[in-house]
Every structure is written in C-alpha cells, then in structure tokens.
C-alpha cells in the first residue's frame, strides 16, 4: 500500500481522531445533551475514516464522491505549490513564540520584539528599515488600542500581569 499524500493523510487522521474523541465523550452525557453531537459526529467520523482509506486507495474517492459542478479540475493544490521548505515550521514557531512573549512579557514588550524579529529574519529587511517599521507599527497600535480605546494591554505574567 502506498500513500497518496503523506501530509493530507496525517491531517485527515488528525480530524478523524478529533471527531472520534468528540463522539466517545458524547456517551458520557445525558440523552438530550448527546443527541445532536451524535447525529452530526457519527457521519462525520465515518466520512473521515473513509477519507483516510482514500489516501491508500485513491480510486475509491472517484467512485463515491460527488464533484459538484465538476470543479475538481479547477482546484489544483490551493496553496501547497508555493510553499518554501522549512518556512512553515519557522513561521508556526514564530506565531506561538509571539503568544509566549505576550503571556510572559506582555504586549508592550512582545509586539516590538516580534515585529523586529519578523522584519529582520523573515522579511530580510535591513536593520534600519526594520527598526523604523517596528517603531511606527508599535506606536500606531498603542495609539489605537491603549490611547483611543483606553484598553489596558496585558502586562505579562513576569511583569505582574494576572490571568
């Protein structure tokens, strides 16, 4: 058996496990509470299992799926073709790194740090351009959220912020 697409297989498997978990947890609830989740969850689970199988036997999909308005030929790989190697991992890390910075140090420190890192490393801009852009964007955001809206931005757990 050969996998049609490893990435799609893993992603579909993830969706299958999520649906399976929801269906299994539903049995812990009362009859009314679990009725709708089971009505929706069981067919979704079966379809996800079918899609996992399809990754091994691609011919199955053409037999059972309906290509509404025959647009499958138009789809192609939506965004996969343009992906730079290793880039997704780095940018996902950067995203969660920003969240961690906000959580620990608060918005006032995390925002300029994230912006500078992005402009300099991912955007490959010069130090001067990166610093100016960081200052302008951070300043505008502060003006909008903290000054105009009067929002108290989160200070970060290490600097006295509370969740």
């Amino acid at each position: 058996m050969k996998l049609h697409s490893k990435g799609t297989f893993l992603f579909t498997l993830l969706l299958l496990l999520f649906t399976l978990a929801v269906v299994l947890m539903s049995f812990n609830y009362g009859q009314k509470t679990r009725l709708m989740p089971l009505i929706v969850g069981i067919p979704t689970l079966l379809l996800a299992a079918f899609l996992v199988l399809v990754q091994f036997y691609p011919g199955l999909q053409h037999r059972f799926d309906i290509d509404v308005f025959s647009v499958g030929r138009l789809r192609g790989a939506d965004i996969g073709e343009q992906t730079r190697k290793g880039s997704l991992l780095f940018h996902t890390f950067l995203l969660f790194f920003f969240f961690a910075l906000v959580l620990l140090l608060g918005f006032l420190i995390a925002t300029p740090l994230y912006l500078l890192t992005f402009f300099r490393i991912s955007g490959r801009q010069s130090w001067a351009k990166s610093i100016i852009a960081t200052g302008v964007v951070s300043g505008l955001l502060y003006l909008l959220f903290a000054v105009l809206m009067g929002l108290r931005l989160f200070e970060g757990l290490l600097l006295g912020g509370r969740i």
Partner: protein
Amino acid sequence: MFEAIIAALSVLISFKGILFVFLGCVWGLILGALPGVGGPTGLILLLPLTFGMDPMLAMLLYVGVMGGSPFGGSISAILLNVPGTPINAATCFDGYPMARKGEAGKALGISATASCMGALFGLTILAALLPVARAIILAFTPPEFFMIVLFGLATVVITSRGNMIKGFIAGGIGILLSFVGYCGVTGDVRYSLGTEYLWDGIELVPLFIGIFAISEALHLSVGKRGTIADQGIALTKLGGAWLGFKEVFRRKWCFLRGSAIGTIIGIIPGVGGTVANFISYTVTVQLSKHPETFGRGNPEGVLASESANNAKDGGALVPTIVFGIPGSLEMAILLGAFILHGLVPGPAMLQDHLDLVWILILGLALSNIIASSLGFFLIKILVRITTVNLAYIVPVIVVLSFTGVFAMRTEVWDILVTAIFGLVGYGMRRHGFPLVPLVIGYVLGAIAEKAFHQSLMVADGSYSIFVNRPIAATLLIVTLLSLSVPFLLSKRTSKGDEHNETP
C-alpha cells in the same frame, strides 16, 4: 406619525445632529476595521460618555457607530482577508480573491454601495413594517427557525465546491465545535476538557480571525514573496470604486435578494448579522449559474454578503423596538443604552417616543450614507495597502489580530485559540478542505440544536411539528430541493460527458 418624522428630522438636520452621526460613523469605521473589535465594542465604549447627554443626540452617536462599523469591517476583510467583525466573514470569500487579482478598488466600491443601499433597503422595510411587525415576529416560532437554520446548513453541499466528502467533514467539525461549552437545552457543560475557559464554548471572534486572518498570514509567510495584489492593481480614477458602484446596479437581483435575506433574518430575534451574512452568500452561490467562480473573486459574493449584513440592522430594530427583544448583539447594547437614558423599549415606545424611533431610522440611514461616501473617497488610498511588500503586511496582520482578539474581552487564552485555529485553517486549505462549510457549521450548529429541542418541547416530542406548520413545511421542501441539486447536476454532467465521449 408625520409629526414624529418632522421632530426627528429637525434634530437630525442640525449642526449637532450631523456632527454626532459623523463622529459615531468615523468611530465605527475605525473600530469596524480592527479585527475582533467591531461595532459592539464601539457602542460599549460610548455608553459611559453619553450618560447625561440628550437621549436624541446620544442615539445619533450610537446609530453612527452601527452604520459605520460593517463597512469598516469589510475594508480589512477585502484588503487583508481579516474580517473586521464576524458579520464580514463571508466578504472575505470573494473580496480578498478580488484584491489578489488587483480588483480591491472594485470590491470596496461594491461593498460601499451595497452596504449603504442594503441599509436603506432594510430601513425602508422597517418603516413599512412598524404597524404590522408584531404579527410577523410571532409567525416565526422554533420550528420555522430550525428550518431556516437547517436550510443554511444544507448549503454546505454547494459550498464544498468539488469535494463533497471533505466539505461534509469540514461542516461536521464546524457543527461539533459549536457544541463545546454549555448545552443551550440542558445546561450541561460539554467537551470542556476540564478547563473553565471552555465552559462558554469557543468564542466566535478568535475562531474566525484564526481561520481567516492567521491562516492567510501563514500562507503569505511561507509562499513566494511579493504583494497581496500579485497581479498589480488597476489604478483608475477613484481606485476602481466607480466600477464597483456600477456592478451593484448591474446585479440588482443579487443585491435585492441579499438585502431581503438580511432584513428577514435581522427581524428574527437573537440571530444576528453573521447568520444573515452566510445565508445570503450561500443562497447566492446556490442560485448562480456559475457557482464554481465563487471563492475566486466573484463580485456577487461581496455584493450578497455586504447587502445582507447592513440590511439586517433595519430588520433587527423591529423586535428591539416592538418587543424590547434584541435582534443582535449591537441591538442588545442599544437596548442597554435605552434603559440608561430612561427609555422603555416595547409597544409603549411606539406610542410615547415615536420621534426617537424615527431618529434611529433616519440616523442609521444618514450614517450609512456618510460611511459609504467616506469609503468612496478613501478607496484610492486604501487599495495601495495591497501593493505593500508582504514582509511588512504579514506581521501587522498577526499583531493586529492578536491585539484585537485580546481587546474583545481581555482574555489572554483567546490569543492561543486564535493561533491554533490559524494553524487548523492553514492545514485545511493546504489539504483541500473548504473553510466555508466549517464556518457555516460553527455559526449555525448550536442554534439549530436549540431550535430543534425547543420545537420538540412545544410539540410534546412529536416530530410532526416540522411538517404541520406551513412556513416550516415550505422551508423543509426548499432545503430538500437544495440538497438534491448537486446530485441531479452531477447526473446531468456525467450524462453529458458520456454523450460527448460517444463517437
């Protein structure tokens, strides 16, 4: 009635009146464009400021915000794929692809025109319906409501575009996500994983911003470098806005349908603009002769979404004024503002404060005209955002999204949820799972469950309630027909293919 209209006009057409609507409108435009913030936050921030103010002028400030924020939300939805407010989410589907094709100005022109005219449509209907509003609202009970929502869910079939199994899975997962938290029927907490955070369910704004904005930021980060408008922009006079203006009149039936759907759904209490937005979009896709062009920059997608989300305000004012039942979140805040100023919504308001009702109607109309006019003149500047280097755009989208999500209810964990759904959205797009069914499922899932159980309670557990009532039965037939369309079309297509292949 005419005395009330003249009294309202005398307040509205004064320096103070126009100034208050204008200020509210600008405030609404700015907050509407900020992801996660939107009109309700704008109204809440104004509440303490208007305390002690003349109620008429305070109401003008409120309707100014309500008129400005939906168009503000469409600006970020079209230019950055970041829905400023949840009611602009469906605008992203075709507005952003238009921006990528260099047609941001045209898309914004459609949005400005459709927003303004949609609102005027809704308000005209409101004015006409005021005397008979009570009867209309009472005709929609849980079974009818369940059928409307079921119809919305059935559109998953159409919006799956090319891969129905993946569409059904996405829709199913969207519905399952809407079940997280308190069950609207029994009060049990479901799937909270032992955390208090999930007791109230997954918040709409972090999910939407994650799915649309963060997934797009990831996509732009890992893709080839350049600008959003990768094919350049058409820099015409007014930045293409005039083309958008003409497009609305060229597709008048689409506009009228979207506005009518927005108004009708707005009238149903507690549903709101997000549902109106999605149902209008999906109905337009269903009725289109070229449904495969949606999601790739079809102007009708923007038109359907924007006309509905502004028309819903007129509809939502009906239950707010007539019964004191808010038709949407903004209306709930407006209701709070009424009480703050000593006004009691409901039938008494129509008798004792009819001038105030007309202030709301006329003020909202003026606010929409101002918002769209401002938008028209700013389009030429706004579209240039799509030509800025992505190295600058991507981190701004991320920071704006995270800060906006935090601003909504000052909850740090909402940021994590946004990031997680950003990754999920990216994965779905990368592996060919459509996002639209997931979002529709999420918006309508819990509402459908509640209406379903309420209907059964009313009918003592009998399912016949869904077919015995004329409106519910009609809606059921329409739903079944819409579900069968793809199967019939698929058969016709395969027959046609066989015919073509025959030598």
